[in-house]
């Protein structure tokens, strides 16, 4: 949850960036940041939704989709991202998969005082893996989503978008 309640990150904006960047498949596991986005994605005929039961599965699926010519996006929560460490290493970094991971930033606060260790370790985890990331809290930040897609394509590496908007626009 962020502290900037005046504006929210709308699911429509996120979906627009997905379409703008040619996403074909969303490999995902539900989290509390993305319920409204899920409903919009379901209604979007250009997207295939691939639900997983553990976030690490999303990495190998994305690697296969990419090898076969598709453009996947991974949509998970920070807790699941941390669970997925070895799959991120082997299937995304090891296979040079230029995928964007939109990661719900559970526990995020702007002031840094949080009561959730999921937030405490999120950015440290990404730094340890050498994965670049962008924080998106509101529609005003949404252009960073496209920046992440462009960087992934340029570097042939995964790039993370941290979604710091729990219980706002995504969960009306």
């Amino acid at each position, binding site marked *: 949850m962020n502290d900037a309640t005046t504006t929210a990150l709308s699911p429509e904006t996120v979906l627009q960036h997905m379409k703008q960047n040619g996403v074909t498949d969303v490999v995902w596991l539900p989290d509390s940041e993305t319920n409204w986005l899920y409903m919009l994605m379901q209604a979007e005929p250009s997207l295939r939704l*691939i639900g*997983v*039961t553990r976030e690490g599965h999303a990495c*190998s699926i994305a690697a296969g989709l990419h*090898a*076969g010519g*598709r453009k996947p996006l991974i949509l998970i929560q920070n807790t699941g991202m941390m669970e997925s460490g070895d*799959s991120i290493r*082997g299937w995304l970094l090891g*296979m040079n998969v230029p995928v964007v991971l939109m990661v719900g930033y559970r526990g995020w606060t702007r002031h840094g005082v949080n009561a959730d260790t999921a937030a405490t370790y999120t950015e440290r985890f990404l730094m340890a893996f050498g994965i670049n990331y962008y924080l998106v809290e509101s529609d005003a930040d949404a252009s960073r989503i496209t920046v992440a897609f462009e960087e992934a394509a340029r570097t042939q590496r995964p790039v993370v978008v941290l979604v710091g908007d729990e219980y706002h626009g995504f969960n009306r």
Partner: protein
Amino acid sequence: MMHTAELLQAFAAHRGDAIVVPGRGGRHWVKLTAHETLDVPLGDPAMGGHAGFALGLAIAQPNRRVVLFDSEGDILMSLGMLATIAEQAPPNFYHFLLDNECYATTGGQPVPNASNVAYDTVARGAGYPRAFAFTELTDFTTNLPGILAQPGPVFVALKVLPEVENEPIGRRSRWNTRSRDKVVQDLRGELGLPSLASKSAL
């Protein structure tokens, strides 16, 4: 129990133009294949992921049969993947499981409940419409053409003899003749997809 090399040899005659992800059968498959650029021998990028990778390929290439030789150690790590595959239900996906009842690459320690897991039943319970199990090569080879004639997703559990490795990993002979980058580039070239910028694996 079957020898992995023998069952792969039996499969090779029916491979056609399928994409083959040989998984832990890779060391044998690289010697048997007649269409290397449609093979995706990746070694072991991260345990438990071969089924997901092959699912992604099957979705991406719906007009091409995708054949995976998974292992029971891998699938036990990712049982939920069976539900994902069953839900996506790619009709071009053929999921073979090499079940040697142990972790052969770490010395042959048994997997949990090694002899008592009915993987075909697990797959059917997860939603695969068709699942089979074979312990003898003659049964497998007799039924293989009929299995491959059915739409996927199909699951086939195969009991195989363990090929245990006790050498330290650094001293083992490497069977892969191509890097992972080269494997993917070759496949994409064969499929008419654009080439990717090459990078070294981390």
